[in-house]
C-alpha cells in the first residue's frame, strides 16, 4: 500500500436543492518521498481535492488511505489529530498570527500536542527557524518581515511537528519571481534531503516544473499523472 491512496473519491456540494458535483471519482496514489504538483484551472476541483487530502474536509463517498489509515472514516477530532501529527500546511497568504513573534508563530502548533514542555517547544521552534534561514529574525513580528521571510516562517511552522507530508497551496502566489525561486528550492531541498512528501497546488506551470510529477485535474477528474511512478524516490 502506498503512502497516499485515493479510491473513487466523490465530493458533491449541496446548495439548497441543487447538487454541485466537484470531484467525480478521483483515484490516485502518492508514494512516500514524492514531490507532486497538483495543477488545474480555477474551478477544476483542485482546491477541494487538496482539502480532502489535507484532512480538512470529508469526501461524500470513496476511500482515502493515508499512511495505512483510512482517514475518510475518522471523526473531526481524529482528523484534527492527524493534521497535527502528520500534516503541515503552507498557504498562499502565509496566515501568520499578527503581532506575534516568528518564534511564537512557529511554536503555535506545538501547543496542541501535550508531550512537549514549553522550553522544548521553543527550542524546537528555534531549530526549525534556523533551518529555514531566519536565525536572526526570531523575535520579529510578521509585519516586520518581507513576504519571502513570512513564507519561510510559515514553512517553519509547517515543519515544527516533523510531519511526513507537507501541503503547499499556491505557496508562491504572493511572492515575486526571485523569492518564489528561493521558496521552491527550499521545498525541493526538504523533499530531497529530509524525504518529506510534498503536495503542491498551483496553476503556474513554472512552479509545477519543480515537482517530480504533475497531476492535472480538469472538471473534477484527474487527466493524467494519477499513479505513483514506479521506482520513485522512497526513503
Amino acid at each position, binding site marked *: 500500500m502506498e503512502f497516499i491512496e485515493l479510491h473513487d473519491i466523490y465530493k458533491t456540494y449541496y446548495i439548497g436543492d441543487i447538487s454541485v458535483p466537484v470531484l467525480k471519482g478521483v483515484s490516485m496514489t502518492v508514494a512516500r518521498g514524492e514531490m507532486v504538483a497538483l495543477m488545474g484551472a480555477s474551478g477544476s476541483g483542485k482546491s477541494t481535492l487538496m*482539502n480532502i487530502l*489535507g484532512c*480538512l*474536509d470529508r469526501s461524500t463517498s470513496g476511500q482515502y488511505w493515508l499512511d495505512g489509515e483510512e482517514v475518510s472514516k475518522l471523526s*473531526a*477530532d481524529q482528523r*484534527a*489529530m492527524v*493534521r*497535527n*501529527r502528520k500534516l503541515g*500546511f503552507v*498557504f498562499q497568504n502565509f*496566515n501568520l*498570527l*499578527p*503581532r*506575534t513573534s516568528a518564534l*511564537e508563530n512557529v511554536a*503555535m*502548533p506545538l*501547543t*496542541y*500536542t*501535550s508531550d512537549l514542555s*514549553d522550553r522544548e517547544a521553543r527550542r524546537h521552534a528555534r531549530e526549525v527557524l534556523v533551518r529555514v534561514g531566519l536565525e536572526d529574525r526570531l523575535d520579529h513580528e510578521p509585519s516586520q518581515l518581507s513576504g519571502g521571510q513570512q513564507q519561510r516562517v510559515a514553512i517553519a*511552522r509547517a515543519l515544527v*511537528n516533523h510531519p511526513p507530508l507537507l501541503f503547499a497551496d499556491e505557496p508562491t502566489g504572493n511572492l515575486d519571481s526571485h523569492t518564489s525561486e528561493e521558496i521552491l528550492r527550499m521545498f525541493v531541498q526538504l523533499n530531497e534531503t529530509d524525504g518529506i512528501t510534498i503536495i503542491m497546488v498551483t496553476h503556474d506551470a513554472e512552479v509545477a516544473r519543480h515537482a517530480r510529477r504533475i497531476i492535472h485535474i480538469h472538471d473534477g477528474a484527474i487527466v493524467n499523472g494519477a499513479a505513483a511512478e514506479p521506482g520513485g524516490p522512497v526513503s
Partner: protein
Amino acid sequence: MKSYRTIRTALKALRRNPMRALLTTLGIVIGVAAVIAMMEIGAGSSAAVQKSISSMGANVVLVMPGTATSSGISFGSGSVMTLTPDDGEAILKECPAVRTAAPAVRSRTQVVYGNRNWVPSSMYGTTPAFLDVRDWTVVDGESFTERDVLNGNKVCLIGQTLVRELFEGTSPVGKEIRVKNVAFRIVGVLGSKGANMMGMDQDDILLAPWTTIKYRVTGSSLQTANQSAAAAASSTVNTLSNLYPGGQPGLYPLQSEVQAADTPMPVRFTNIDQILVAARSAPEIPAAIDQMTDLLHERHHIRPGESDDFTIRDMTEMSNTLSSTTRLMTNLLLCVAMISLVVGGVGIMNIMLVSVTERTREIGLRMSVGARARDILRQFLVEAVVLCLVGGAVGILLGHGGSTLVRILLHWPVQTSPTAIAASVIVSAAVGILFGYYPAWKASRLDPIEALRYE
C-alpha cells in the same frame, strides 16, 4: 492541551490587542467597582445606622421582677421583688449572647444644689456597666467605679438637663449635690442623648452606685419618694442621722403578711428593680432572651408549668424594622450590582463576537494545525473569563480605593466587605463563562476551510 497553556495562549491573544481588551473589560471594571464601593459604603452606613439605633437601646433587653397576684388581682410588673444583683452577674457570666448587664434601682426624688432644685425624671442606682449597656459616654470627669458600688460611695453622674437646671452650664464636676439630704459628689457629666423615641428627655438623669441609692437614699426599692412627702412624714427634721445616714437599713426587708401569704416564692434579700442587659448584636437578642429565661428559671427554682417570677422585654419592633430596612438596602444594592454586571457581560459578549469574526483566519489556521473544536472553544472561553476576572480584580481595587477616598474626603463610615469581594470574583467569572460561551461556541463551530479563506 494543558490548561496553563490555554491560559497563556489566551493572555497572548489579549496582549495582541491591549486597547480592545481594556475597553472590553471596562464594563466589568466599572460594574464591579461600583458594586464594591456601594457595598462598602452601604455596609458602613448600615452599621452606623445600626449603631445609632442600638445607642437608643435596640440591643437592650430589660429584665423586670414578676407580678404578684392575689385572688386574680394582678399588682402589675415589679410588685414582687425577685431579682438580685447576683442574677445580673450570673446573666453576664453564663449567657454567651449577652455583652453586658447592669442591675438598676430606680428612684425619683429631689436633687438640691445651692438654692436650686430639680426632680430628675429618672434616677438610677446601678453599676458602671450601665453606661456600656446604654452606649453612653462621660463627656466631663469620669464614671464612678465598681469600688464605689462595693463601698456605697456617695458619688454620681448627671445628665445634661441637670447640668442646665442646677448649674446653669458651669462645670459641675467635683461639686456636691444633695439627694434626699444625702450629699453626692458629682464625678462626671453624661453626654447628650436628646429625647428618646417616646419623646422623653433622656438627659434628665442621675446615675449613682446602686448600693448608695438603695441603702442611703431610698432604703427600699420602689418607693417613689418625694422629698416633701418624706419630710412631712418624718418626725425629726434635719437630724444628724438624716444628713449623714451611716446606718445600714435592715438586711432582711420584711414582707408584709399579705405578701408573704400571696407569694410562695421568697423575696430575695437585696432585690433590685430591673436588670438592663445588652445583647451582643440585634440578631442575638432572641438567643439572649432564651438563655436568660433558662438561667433565671434555674436560679429561681421555677419548675416547668409554674409562672415566671420575672419578665423579659426587648425592643423587638425596633430591631425588626432595623433588619428589614437593612435587608431592603442590601437587596437594592444587589439589584444594581446584577444590572451593571449584566451590562458589562453584554459588552464582553459583543466584543468577543467581533473578535471571533475578526480572527476567523486565525481560528482556521489553528484548526488546520490540529486544534480540535473544543480547543478553540476553550481558548475563547478562557479569554472571556480572563478578561472578566482581570476586570473584576481591577474593579475591586478601584471600588475599594473609591470607598476609601469617600471615607477620607467625606468622612462617611465605610466597611470593607469580604463577602462583596468574594461575590464579585465569582460573579465576574460567571459572567465571563455565561457571556463568553456563545462567541466561543460560534468560533469552535467554524469550518476550517471557510475560516482559512475568510477575508
